[in-house]
């Protein structure tokens, strides 16, 4: 019987950083399972630079960033298995042990027992079908990430004349990438009145190459019965409905879609992990632990991040917390719980609740806002008393926000009698 202290699902940036942290916290029986042929996850196809400014104080490419963590994993002799698909996760009859069913070519299908699990499966791209984009279904429609893999890893060009729908970061990066490969990127259309990507990507990937970004526009028709021949865009109104008379058809052979990322939680759902409908990721507490004790989540499977640096930071916490769970060194007193309530402008928070007894001296709360805000404050209220106020000149849905809360501050403000305390986090415009 294969038995580990911690099994980590996914060897992308989250899984690698979690493994390193768990090892450094003293855990030796760690196994990482990865379905792809190499560790590093999606970073392997992100050959552009800009990774690691926070973590390493230098600009790295995706593969270089991944490599730093792969080296750390290898130096620590942490075991990982590639080309291995996790088929399911279950709670063992002798809970709290968990059973991971995995499969690969060499070993067939087998079971692994583990005390703790760290979910780090990442996310997938939203497809055309999920957006109900009408038209034909010819060759030449790719999600931006698939196109990125084809170009950067397989060495193929998906097309020569390109329209991109969605201004998510991968779409922006691919606008530049396709241009550099000699393709003509005609336009990037974005349904919302603001971009879904980082400001720096709009400047470096679109503006620098004179690629127009059409906000409040969407694709209303795809032409071409065999290969894409054209794409029709239209402006949308406040309800995101196409406005008649604004149609514009672009002749092209390729449509790339960068219309959102969805955490891949089919395995988590199969295990009984409760998912937040806003993020499609698990609800977690201060330890990044799901509703199932000993099952942790980090990285894009938990909520979609903008920068990999924050993934590493979050995964580090998940790794440490999983180690503490395995060592049973956590404070067992249930204590006071604080429910975090995202309001006005704040779409969700990770974590969604804090158990004060388990909280570190400082807790990072990550979230995204639902609109573009200028000159505003992020404010936190514990039981209706303002405890934090942070000025933000600009906030946009494409960028992740964070708030750091001090334990002392929370302790001084909680109502000791009450089991549940409410922490409201919201945007306040001046």
């Amino acid at each position, binding site marked *: 019987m294969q038995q580990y202290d911690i099994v980590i699902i996914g060897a992308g940036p989250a899984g690698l950083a979690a493994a390193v942290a768990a090892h450094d916290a003293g855990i030796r029986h760690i196994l990482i399972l990865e*379905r792809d042929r190499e560790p590093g996850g999606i970073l*392997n196809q992100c*050959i552009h630079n800009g990774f690691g400014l926070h973590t390493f104080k230098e600009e790295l490419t995706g*593969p270089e960033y991944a490599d730093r963590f792969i080296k750390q994993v290898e130096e620590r002799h942490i075991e990982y298995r590639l*080309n291995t*698909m996790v*088929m399911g996760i279950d709670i063992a009859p002798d809970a709290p042990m968990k059973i991971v069913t995995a*499969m*690969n*070519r*060499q*070993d*067939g*299908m087998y079971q692994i027992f583990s005390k703790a699990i760290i979910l780090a499966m990442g996310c*997938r*791209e939203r*497809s*055309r*079908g*999920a957006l*109900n984009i*009408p*038209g*034909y*279904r*010819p*060759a*030449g429609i*790719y*999600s931006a*990430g*698939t196109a990125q*893999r*084809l*170009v*950067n*890893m*397989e*060495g*193929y*060009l*998906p*097309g*020569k004349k390109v329209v991109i729908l969605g201004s998510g970061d991968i779409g922006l990066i691919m606008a530049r990438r396709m241009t550099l*490969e000699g393709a003509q990127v005609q336009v990037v259309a974005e349904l919302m009145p603001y971009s879904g990507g980082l400001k720096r990507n709009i400047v470096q990937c679109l503006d620098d190459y004179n690629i127009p970004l059409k906000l409040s526009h969407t694709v*209303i*028709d*795809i032409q071409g*019965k*065999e*290969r894409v021949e054209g794409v029709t865009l239209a402006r949308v109104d406040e309800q995101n409905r*196409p406005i008649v008379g604004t149609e514009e058809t672009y002749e092209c*052979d*390729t449509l790339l879609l960068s219309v959102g990322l969805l955490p891949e939680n*089919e395995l988590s*759902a199969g295990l009984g992990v409760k998912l937040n409908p806003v993020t499609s990721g698990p609800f977690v507490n201060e330890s990044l632990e799901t509703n199932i004790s000993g099952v942790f989540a980090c990285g894009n499977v938990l909520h979609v991040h903008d920068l990999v640096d924050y993934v590493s930071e979050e995964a580090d916490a998940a790794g440490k917390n999983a180690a503490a769970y395995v060592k049973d060194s956590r404070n067992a007193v249930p204590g006071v719980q604080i429910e975090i309530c995202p309001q006005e402008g704040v779409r969700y928070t990770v974590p969604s609740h804090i158990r004060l007894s388990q909280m570190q001296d400082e807790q990072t709360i990550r979230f995204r806002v639902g609109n573009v805000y200028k000159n505003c404050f992020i404010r936190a209220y514990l039981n209706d008393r303002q405890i934090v106020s942070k000025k933000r000149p600009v906030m946009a849905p494409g960028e992740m926000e964070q708030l750091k809360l001090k334990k002392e501050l929370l302790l001084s403000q909680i109502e000791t009698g009450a089991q549940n305390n409410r922490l409201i986090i919201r945007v306040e415009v001046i």
Partner: protein
Amino acid sequence: MYDIIIIGAGVSGTSIARELSRCKGKFCVLEKEEDVCCGTSKANSGIVHAGYDAAPGSLMAELNVQGNRMMKALSEELDFPFYQNGSFVVCTEENALPRLSELYERGQKNGVKDLQILTREEALFMEPNLCGETVAVLYAPTAGIVCPFGMNIALAENAFLNGVEFAFDTEVKEIIKKESHYQLITSKGIYEARCVVNAAGVYADRFHNMVSEKKIHITPRKGEYILLDKSAGNHVSHTIFALPGKYGKGVLVTPTVHGNLMIGPTAVDITDKEGKNTTAEGIDTIRQKAGNSVRNLPLKKVITSFAGLRAHEDGHEFLIGEVEDAPGFIDCAGIESPGLTSAPAIGVLAADLLKDKLQLEDNPSFTPERKGILNPALLTLEERNRLIQNQPAYGNIICRCEMISEGEILDAIHRPLGAKSLDGVKRRTRAGMGRCQSGFCSPRTMEILHRELKIPMEELTKCGGNSRLITGQRERVAGCSSTIL
């Protein structure tokens, strides 16, 4: 000279081909697309109708009920997915009850077995997500769901193994009536046959009208559908139809044999016989009407939408038989719903007619059984591990959404009439049919097709013709073997 040429490798054409292969003879199926199941047969509801819908006495009614009765045995013989999940026709208005009874009566006349009218309570007990306004339901336990691709491909493979030839990418341009045979001018040269079967779906009128003075007319009637993720697959367990009422003709809501939930179709007459595009109006209509018979539909879980074309003949009847003024030319035209259900019976009817006409002898080596692509998920752990030990490709998952292994994809490519394109692999294995809609697996499936069939990557297609997947290779830096520069 062939004894019989069949135009069209859809479900009708291949069903006839398979029935013919019970006899000795030289038979060939001509198909303009690169694969079987590329027209009407690939985009429909996948429903095996009970048979209460068609007018009593019509050929449609007769073949529907016959086809329904044949389906189970055929699905076992040819190893394709078929489940008799039963269908509901939901009546939501008191004053429409007579029309529900009318359907029941029609079903009785057509010979549909076990039809029942359920009360609101009985229906809601069996199907809790029926809409709240449900008054009564016509329940047909004999109705079912089938994999439309699986069935079509199975019929074709079995016909092929029993000696029927298939010519793909072969479009019939012209048919010339000779003294005692027909000459077919195609995109791949001239074919000749003593008899021709016209199973050309929406194009059947074109071929009929080439040889006959009695013209027929077929309208492509578009039906759009939306497909929901498997996590919505249990929303209903029966196929739910809405009784036509104040909202007009409704849409059906059904689980599919693969565990998804499907909603549709619309019905819009068009002129373009290749007009398989979805439309904003079509998708809106489906979304609006879906709730008329089923409540709480998780419409956020849509993973794709598609459209198919029904081959609607003006008289709304199957036209199956020898054309009066064209001896030896057999029509199989106007095959719209319940065409898929009727296909097994259509095969027998048309083949019997040809057997008589050409005095065909029995084929003593006919093998009725065909084995489908192995589904490893149905094996025990020990069986699966033995399989992976012998063929490690079964341990390598390519499509993570549908959990399809490389072993299944290799089988799809190398079996008789195997897959040559991304869609060919998808229809045979479901790889790429899941919630990510081939985002992750398409580069890997392309690589396998490229390797196994030795097709250059630039020539690989989504579905034949000019549907090429990539437009070129990146220039490599000299001395750098890796593609990561």
